[in-house]
């Protein structure tokens, strides 16, 4: 390859991600001069359309930001409203929230790991191709995903955009029978999760490591899912209400998703890798052991191994859901009473793809005056671009089509949810 030669690699639209976006990489000689993770899915203006709506409508409206992780939005919005109206949801209702969130982790993680990400490691186009050669893997994955959805249905009434969640708790407490019916399938699910963890651990992982700034939640008593403080591997430890003092968003031309960064302008990473590395000590013994057997240390810095980390989290979520389902007794009341009023509140939870922050201001009637929602993929955008840069630089000698695929895979390491962050994925590698 001579220095003056121009090489351009283009992919019309990146597949196996939620939503639509593009990547543009420019290489001059042996140097990468530009990387843009372009998000141009048409914006839907959620923060604007929430203005003037009642506080109680926020969970159902924000659920529609993303069909894959509606619980993250419903719960973030609920927590923020509960914070604004000074109520607390505890006991069985809190457990039910954790249970349904486990369902979402299982459904979303298995969809991504087995159906969207695994094909990359096998050089295959999709999971249907995997099913022809390894039907076991795909059938086990489908049954696990289905169980995740069944948890959502049992607690929430519907898998996509559940109807039973509200500020203060639930419209109706699920029956003991409905929740106990999950117990036996969850026992089997633990085995399936172990099986898939082992299967994916056997993949060849591209050799790429990065010293990430991991940002996740942390809870004193449990592996954080729906509650906790926000911490980082660089020593940050703040309540969700301080989020905007430490992180900000910037609007860049090539993205309809605002890009997140620390107030000092540093990029950071949220999601399974961050949670795992910050909170490894709080995983179950079985999950820790499965991680070790899969070749992971207590901190994981190779983003390609995120597929294994996701399965370790699925294993944990199955065990946790099992524990909660076995202990479930119907509560006296399905929700805490909420009185509309003025206030400002913050909520943050661990969506499958990482922390998702909400804040709202309410007027005296409980109508929304202002809303800010910061989804995980917006926060990861800068880190995604940086990983692509690193991966391209380390693989300059690859043929264009292979390098393009590797770039796509690098983006898929993040399970980017472009619908959440707003948005269209096109991939162009321009070599000058």
């Amino acid at each position, binding site marked *: 390859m001579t220095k003056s030669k121009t090489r351009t690699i283009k992919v*019309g*639209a*990146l*597949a*196996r*991600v*939620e*939503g*639509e976006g593009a990547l543009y990489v420019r290489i001059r000689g042996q140097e990468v001069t530009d990387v843009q993770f372009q998000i141009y*899915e*048409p*914006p*839907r*203006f959620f*923060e*604007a*359309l929430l*203005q003037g*709506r*009642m506080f109680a*409508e926020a969970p*159902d*409206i924000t659920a*529609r930001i*993303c*069909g*894959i992780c*509606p619980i993250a939005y419903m719960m973030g919005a609920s927590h923020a409203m509960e914070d604004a109206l000074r109520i607390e949801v505890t006991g069985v209702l809190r457990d039910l929230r954790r249970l349904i969130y486990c369902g979402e982790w299982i459904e979303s993680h298995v*969809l991504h790991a087995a*159906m*969207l990400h695994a*094909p990359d490691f096998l050089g295959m*186009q*999709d*999971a*249907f191709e995997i*099913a022809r050669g390894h039907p076991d893997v*795909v*059938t086990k994955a*489908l049954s696990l*995903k*289905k169980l995740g*959805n069944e948890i959502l249905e049992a607690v929430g*009434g*519907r*898998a*996509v*955009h559940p*109807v*039973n969640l*509200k500020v203060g708790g639930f*419209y*109706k407490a699920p029956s003991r029978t409905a929740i106990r019916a999950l117990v036996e399938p969850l026992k089997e699910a633990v085995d399936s999760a172990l099986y898939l963890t082992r299967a994916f651990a056997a993949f060849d992982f591209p050799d790429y490591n990065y010293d990430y700034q991991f940002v996740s939640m942390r809870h004193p008593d449990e592996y954080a899912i729906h509650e906790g403080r926000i911490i980082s591997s660089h020593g940050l430890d703040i309540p969700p209400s301080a989020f905007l003092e430490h992180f900000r968003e*910037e*609007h860049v*031309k090539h993205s*309809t998703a*605002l890009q997140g960064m620390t107030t000092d302008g540093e990029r950071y990473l949220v999601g399974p890798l961050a949670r795992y590395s910050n909170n490894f000590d709080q995983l179950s013994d079985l999950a820790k052991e499965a991680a070790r057997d899969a070749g992971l240390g207590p901190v994981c810095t190779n983003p390609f191994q995120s597929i294994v980390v996701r399965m370790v989290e699925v294993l944990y979520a199955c065990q946790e859901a099992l524990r909660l389902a076995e202990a479930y007794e119907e509560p006296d009341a*399905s929700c805490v009473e909420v009185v509309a009023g003025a206030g400002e509140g913050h909520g943050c939870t661990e969506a499958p793809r990482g922390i998702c922050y909400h804040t709202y201001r309410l007027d005296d009637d409980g109508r929304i005056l202002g809303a800010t929602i910061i989804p995980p993929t917006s926060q990861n955008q800068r880190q995604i671009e940086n990983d692509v840069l690193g991966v391209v630089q380390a693989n300059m000698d690859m043929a264009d089509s292979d390098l393009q695929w590797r770039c796509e895979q690098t983006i898929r390491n993040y399970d980017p949810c472009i*619908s959440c962050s707003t948005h269209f994925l096109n991939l162009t590698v321009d070599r000058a």
Partner: protein
Amino acid sequence: MPEPRKAKLAVWKFASCDGCQLSLLDCEDELLELAGAVEIAHFLEASRATVRGPYDLSLVEGSITNSHDAERIQKIRRQSKSLVTIGACATAGGIQALRNFAKVDDFIATVYAHPTYIEALAKSTPIHDHVRVDFELRGCPIDRRQLLEVLGAFLNGRRPNIPAYSECFECKRRGTVCVMVARGTPCLGPVTQAGCGNLCPPHQRGCYGCFGPMETPNTASLSGWFGSAGADQAKIRDLYRSFNAAAAPFRRESERHD
């Protein structure tokens, strides 16, 4: 003998949350069989492999919100023998059609620091405003059993068997206690098309209309009931103004309470 040619299925996304196409991947028990029965020619959420058109059946999720997408849907229509819209975004403009009741520039300025980077049409519009649609499958999200019925029907050249009666009728059929009568909870069931599987009233909440208006709904009479049960104008307006806000009967009724 050569195998009969498999039908080519394509799935397209416009402004949406992906929840309706996810409902296809959520057919866990039928997915592999379906993938064997048809040629999945374009389904970016699931596969990197794409096959050129024409397509026998295109499923379209999402609404039209910018000029680029307004052109793209024309191209897709030309390449599709049958085109079925899936979900409230595609059939009615979705929750993002709340912008139709405001000034879109204000919306852009609320969310983005550099409004000039953003290109958006003033309205979020359903697919049938732009091209001919062969069937509209309602819901936010669609119901996966109904989706399987529609797929089966189109692949076998018959009309889908999707009921057009109201959610209220569905409660009666299933013996669900009426939340309006028993608790005075406002419920859109009497004016909303059935199809969700009867979800909200059994959970002791009013139907929130995610399947959109039924044929010739009597919204005025229902709003009268809401009013006498104590709901103020803003509350009545907001009930109609959600995921199907731009569907004509709901739009008109919400505007009566503005």
